[in-house]
């Protein structure tokens, strides 16, 4: 199996699209939760291909997009402390906080480093040039990336490194989905559930979707064939009136997920009472923090005096990201889209990350 090309073959895609077309009675609203799916859908024009059959709604599954201004302001505040190296993933660098972004802070001379793997932090911490500095990792991501942060903590402790701190922004997929479904006024018929998250968690975390809310839920991979297969299973669940969690990504996802990763996450993290989501506000039990016994590694604890005085961030009132993330409108319904708000000068959450729905719409203008 060629992992790159075999899931893109033109004939397979046309065949799947026409099967979906013939089985869809009226246009269905399907929300893909993950930003990776949104991106693939736009890149390959699957929304245009299935026009009038499936209306793709773009969910809250881009961890960069849902980070509230306040958390970015905190990272900037921490980076401003003496002898601090702030390390963050690449797509976090450009995200605007209230007045600045990490990339702008770097330009001002703050020591902000871009990393790709959390284990890069070890290298920075052990570099003798960084002796006496605190390395603060702006840890972000869903269930997919949390185990990597946990693995880093494990390594830091094993190596007795004492100058690495964590600003933990890890969030969970199910709570915002439940929040959307609880709001009642949604039109969603089914969900394409994230593939990579499910590799870690297994399929159990989506059970509320069919059981409590009677909606379809299919875990899918990220290639065009994966997404259309997922959409077809959703269409069939709806037609047959049997909502369930199904896996259309069996080459990667096991029902029970990755137990080792789950154990590692559980060892270091616990669920917060609530966490603020950009566009949603506070969602109960939706984010993670370090367990109390590891509070000496917790940047929120170590810098608590400095962070205490930070005001909450204020969003642009015209921005429709909140509505977009809940599936209530599309990026091009926003008055700022493509005008005041664009990838060079992002205003809303969904434009800042490459995976955000607005960024995907802007980049891949299909027609």
């Amino acid at each position, binding site marked *: 199996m060629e992992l*790159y090309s075999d899931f893109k073959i033109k004939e397979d895609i046309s065949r799947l699209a026409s099967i979906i077309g013939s089985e869809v009675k009226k246009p269905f609203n399907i929300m893909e939760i993950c930003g990776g799916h949104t991106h693939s859908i736009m890149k390959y*024009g699957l929304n245009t291909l299935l026009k009038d059959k499936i209306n793709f709604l773009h969910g809250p599954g881009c961890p960069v997009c849902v980070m509230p201004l306040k958390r970015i302001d905190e990272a900037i505040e921490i980076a401003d402390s003496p002898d601090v190296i702030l390390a963050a993933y690449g797509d976090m660098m450009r995200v605007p906080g209230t007045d600045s972004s990490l990339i702008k802070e770097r330009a001002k001379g703050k020591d902000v480093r871009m990393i790709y793997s959390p284990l890069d932090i070890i290298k920075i911490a052990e570099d003798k040039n960084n002796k006496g500095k605190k390395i603060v990792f702006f840890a972000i991501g*869903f269930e997919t990336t949390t185990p990597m942060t946990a693995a880093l903590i494990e390594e830091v402790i094993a190596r007795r490194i004492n100058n690495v701190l964590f600003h933990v922004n890890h969030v969970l997929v199910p709570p915002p989905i439940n929040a959307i479904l609880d709001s009642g006024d949604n039109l969603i018929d089914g969900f394409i559930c994230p593939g990579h998250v499910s590799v870690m968690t297994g399929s159990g975390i989506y059970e509320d979707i069919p059981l409590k809310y009677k909606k379809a839920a299919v875990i899918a991979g990220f290639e065009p064939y994966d997404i259309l297969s997922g959409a077809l299973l959703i269409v069939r669940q709806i037609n047959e009136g049997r909502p369930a969690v199904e896996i259309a990504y069996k080459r990667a996802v096991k029902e029970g997920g990755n137990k080792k990763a789950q154990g590692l996450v559980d060892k270091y993290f616990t669920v917060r009472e609530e966490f603020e989501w950009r566009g949603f506000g506070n969602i109960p039990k939706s984010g993670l923090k370090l367990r109390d016994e590891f509070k000496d590694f917790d940047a929120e604890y170590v810098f608590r005096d400095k962070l205490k005085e930070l005001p909450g961030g204020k969003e642009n009132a015209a921005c429709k990201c909140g509505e977009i993330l809940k599936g209530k409108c599309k990026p091009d319904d926003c008055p700022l889209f493509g005008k005041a708000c664009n990838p060079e000068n992002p205003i809303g959450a969904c434009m800042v990350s490459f*995976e955000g729905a607005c960024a995907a719409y*802007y980049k891949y203008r299909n027609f």
Partner: protein
Amino acid sequence: MNKKKYERIQLSHGGGGKETSELIGRIIFNGLYGQNGRSDDLYDLHKRRNNNNFTVNASGQKIKLLEDAAVLKSPQNIAFTTDSFTVSPVFFKGGDIGKLSVAGTVNDLSVMGAKPLFLSLGLIIEEGFASEDLRKIIESISEEADKTGVIVVTGDTKVVPAGKADGIFINTSGIGEILHDGLSVYNIAAGDIIIVSGNVGDHGAAVMSLREGIEMDVEIESDCASLWDMIETILKGGIGVSAIRDATRGGLAAVLNEWAMAAGVDIYVEEDKIPVNDSVRGFCELLGFEPYQLACEGRAVFAVKPEFAEKALNILKSHPLGKDAKIIGTVGGNNSFEAETRGAGQTVGGRNIKGTELKGKVVLKGIYGVNRLLDYPSGELLPRIC
């Protein structure tokens, strides 16, 4: 020169005194002219300064080195260009900053139909830079210059304090003799065929894969190469060429967008025809980049008249640097896309594609029959996390 003492470049190497001339003699002159017998061993510049030994033969002229300026007999029509080079890391698979600094300027001249003749070489070196690395860089400058027969006739070296530069910065300017005039982006017209000389994005992927924060072990080599020889075969082959450009920063996407905008045309490219190395494709999928927006350093894009397209392709394919050449698209008239398929004032993805805002578009025809715009890359390319 005491080897141990000068393992690393020091500020005094840029001071204009004895150390400077030793650096120039030992590393730069030796690297550039020594090996090929163009000059004597320049071990002690000061002693030999007056005996007229510092000359190189270039394009039938004897040019004196070590004067304040190189005195050149210029051909009638010349092309003149300059480019500065900064790359991190300085050494990468398939090349280094030295090779890049020659190929880049050679290619800028070549795409204008000018045979590259003379180069200047300006070096800004950070204090502490390894002398051995500088020697390697100068060697690859010399090697790459030989491929086209271009000669470094003037230069300058400065050393800046540690922390004030990223290892080494190089500027090269180049003079070329116009052998084929009339190449211009403004010649591009509806009906022209777009050809690319090889896989796109190799250089960008090769360099980014080594960058701090990414560091992936991928089998991607930079495509860095001097293109004059390949371009000359096309120009000599009697091909009706409207314009040529080397795809550098911003990759294929930037070239096509600049052309579309400058010539006021829409350009249509078929996605499955654009040649991309599988490793580059995989690298891009993983990090969320688009291969068409990654830099190339040895690829030319041609706009040729339709009746010459096949012949041009065959000529390119028979050249080692163009063996993977492909016809990737065609040029349509200004706003031809809207005129054919949509009414005036229509928007695509919320942006007005009519009128000034998006005059001159690049349309990527996807494999599933859905079209999308291929935009300029914007901002710093930052990898995604998941």
